């Protein structure tokens, strides 16, 4: 029963679903019908048949290929994979237990995530000792320190984060631990492994390393293209109206003695919105520098006549850097080299005011302003005032906020600007994709 083809296909579909490919029951059945039509002993044909019936766009193809290659393997490879996965899980559990013992305050384990605990376990012994010593020193039998645990947790967390940044991402390979009684280890191990591979979409953009930049550029380009086409379509749809033009019909039919013989239709002209990018490059946003430039670069490549501005203390017009179509690296070097404002403090009110005064012709009822910023600025009220004025003169303001949504409630700036724009959490590529998918435009 276990190795029946139906069973294997169902398990394979299960993996695809876990990796984000939506497969309906109908598609699963169609894939089984397709397998009847091809030579089941021909691996390539089986792969093509499953791909043709289960994959629905090119982005999914890579995930499908990886899943297929990992799942449909020789039995001995599968046994080996299972064995490796089990060993990794056992090792992970052992490390977790050790970490829980080490990271305790007055005998009580600190409230850290599994990932943080496992990260601690992989630190060099010297660093682990420092953290342990610190915890030991803080655990003096003094009641005044009873409420100290959360502070301590946050200090340990900060220290782990510091080491994570310092030692780089490669030292943080993390395999989630599962219940030992999990039904199908093979399936879980493939999902874990492939999720790890495709995690670039979910990685905070400020942490993405140099080596992944080409991959990010491609994803951003693709997303920008989607965004660009959606922008034009949505506006086309909302204004679409093929209506009978009675006045022109009567006029055109006078020659037939007034009988309405030739009908004339009217349709509103499609107006594609003008996009204006307004990106924060102040000190607090500097970690997102690559993301900001990639975003403008990608969008400029697919949307014509896009106007791009960067701002920190003052406003800077940067469209020309992107219109020249140099390579991404060149553009980034030239832009950062020539920019007067890069990495300085933020005064969004000033920048918005300059935008309104110096570039009034760009702010029309067709303009959609996309702001990319963490909302942190000097003089929040001034920026709010300017944002209100901007809102009056443009079609829409879309705010891509690089701060996690969980932090929004604590910031007055977010609360104020959220009322004046459509604000979305956006610090990973997955967020950007989600925003675009939502078709907010």
């Amino acid at each position, binding site marked *: 029963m276990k190795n029946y083809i139906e069973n294997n296909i169902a398990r394979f579909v299960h993996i695809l679903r876990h990796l984000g490919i939506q497969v309906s029951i109908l598609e699963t059945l169609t894939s089984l019908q397709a397998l009847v039509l091809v030579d089941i002993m021909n691996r390539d044909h089986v792969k093509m048949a499953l791909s043709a019936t289960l994959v629905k766009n090119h982005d999914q193809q890579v995930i499908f290929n990886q899943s297929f290659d990992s799942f449909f393997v020789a039995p001995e490879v599968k046994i080996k994979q299972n064995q490796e996965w089990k060993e990794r899980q056992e090792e992970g559990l052992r490390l977790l237990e050790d970490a829980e013992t080490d990271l305790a305050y007055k005998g009580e384990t600190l409230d850290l995530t599994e990932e943080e605990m496992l990260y601690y376990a992989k630190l060099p012994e010297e660093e682990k000792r420092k953290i342990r010593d610190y915890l030991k020193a803080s655990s003096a039998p003094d009641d005044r320190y009873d409420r100290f645990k959360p502070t301590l947790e946050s200090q340990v967390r900060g220290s782990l984060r510091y080491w994570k940044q310092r030692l780089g991402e490669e030292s943080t390979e993390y395999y989630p631990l599962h219940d030992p009684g999990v039904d199908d280890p093979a399936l879980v191990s493939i999902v874990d492994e492939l999720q790890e591979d495709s995690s670039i979409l979910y990685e905070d953009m400020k942490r993405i390393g140099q080596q992944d930049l080409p991959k990010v550029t491609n994803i951003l380009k693709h997303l920008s293209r989607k965004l660009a086409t959606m922008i034009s379509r949505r506006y086309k749809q909302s204004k679409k109206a093929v209506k009978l033009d009675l006045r022109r019909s009567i006029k055109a039919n006078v020659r037939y003695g007034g009988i309405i013989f030739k*009908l004339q239709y009217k349709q509103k002209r499609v107006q594609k919105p003008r996009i204006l990018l307004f990106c924060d490059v102040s000190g607090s946003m500097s970690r997102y520098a690559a993301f900001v430039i990639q975003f403008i670069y990608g969008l400029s490549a697919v949307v014509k006549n896009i106007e791009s501005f960067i701002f920190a203390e003052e406003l800077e017009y940067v469209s020309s850097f992107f219109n020249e179509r140099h390579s991404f690296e060149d553009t980034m070097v030239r832009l950062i080299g020539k920019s007067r404002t890069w990495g300085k403090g933020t005064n969004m009110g000033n920048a918005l005011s300059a935008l309104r005064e110096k570039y009034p012709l760009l702010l029309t009822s067709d303009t959609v302003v996309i702001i990319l910023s963490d909302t942190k600025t000097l003089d929040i009220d001034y920026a709010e005032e300017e944002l209100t004025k901007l809102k009056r003169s443009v079609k829409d303001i879309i705010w891509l906020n690089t701060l996690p949504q969980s932090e929004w409630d604590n910031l007055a700036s977010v609360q104020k600007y959220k009322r004046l724009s459509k604000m979305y959490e956006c610090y990973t590529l997955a967020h950007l994709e989600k925003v675009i998918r939502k078709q907010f435009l």
Partner: protein
Amino acid sequence: MKRENLSSITIERLRQGFEKAGYIAEDDIIVPVYLALRLEKPILITGAPGVGKTEIAKVLASVFQTALIRLQCYEGLDENKALYEWNYQRQLIKIQLIKDTASEEMVEQDLFSRGYLLERPLLRAIQAQEKTVLLIDEIDKTDEEFEAFLFEVLSDFQVSIPEWGTIEANHIPMVVLTNNGERELSDGLKRRCVYLYIDFPTIEKELKIIKVKVPEVNDRLAEDIALAVHYMREQDFKKKPSISETLDLANALVLFDAKRLEEKHIKDTINLLLKDKEDIDLFYKELGPFGLVEMINKR
């Protein structure tokens, strides 16, 4: 060409049919097409412009020696242009002609008869007396409303004309949908289709295509062209050269009586490969004709 029978088609015979029709395809294309035909499902073909998506429909029509009915999609395409429309002008003339003589009921019956119906591609495909190939080209150019309407037609292969009732397809057509990926299609439509992604061909495949389509080109020149085009596609150009543009280049070089791809040929024909001024500027800036020839010779 011998007419293929759909019920007895095999992967091998389909491949031969494609080859006879001059379409060089490997299993990655043949198998999904074969499955779509046998499962009687539409095939959704995506890929960059010019990789041969539309050509597949033409080849299918040629392999099965049947009519190709084409629905070219564009922004604003609606049911009237895709399914059917009453011939209003003709109806008005008729009303004027018989208003004094015929009864109201007779007029109405007559006015909604077949003679006054303008059949559009979808209805033509459904009413055809034999299995046809229905090509719905560049589906991504339509809007979502039309897409929703289309996947209803494609799932049941029947349409409803209020004056006539429901019309079922005589034969389920072989439906080919092409998509340039300008926007995401709805899940509903994608679920109903067999999916095929066509990438730009490899150097070897492009070489075969050049030799089949432009037999006058010698082997060395064909290789140069394939390498040059392959290199161009690796660059960050806005519009990458398609297969048809490769063939245009090959034909032009035949006219120039070229034996190898030389610097002067590239200068003279660069407009055939790159259709955007920015791309041409970028080409001259990054590599130029001399650099391209050097690169080809190295490889």
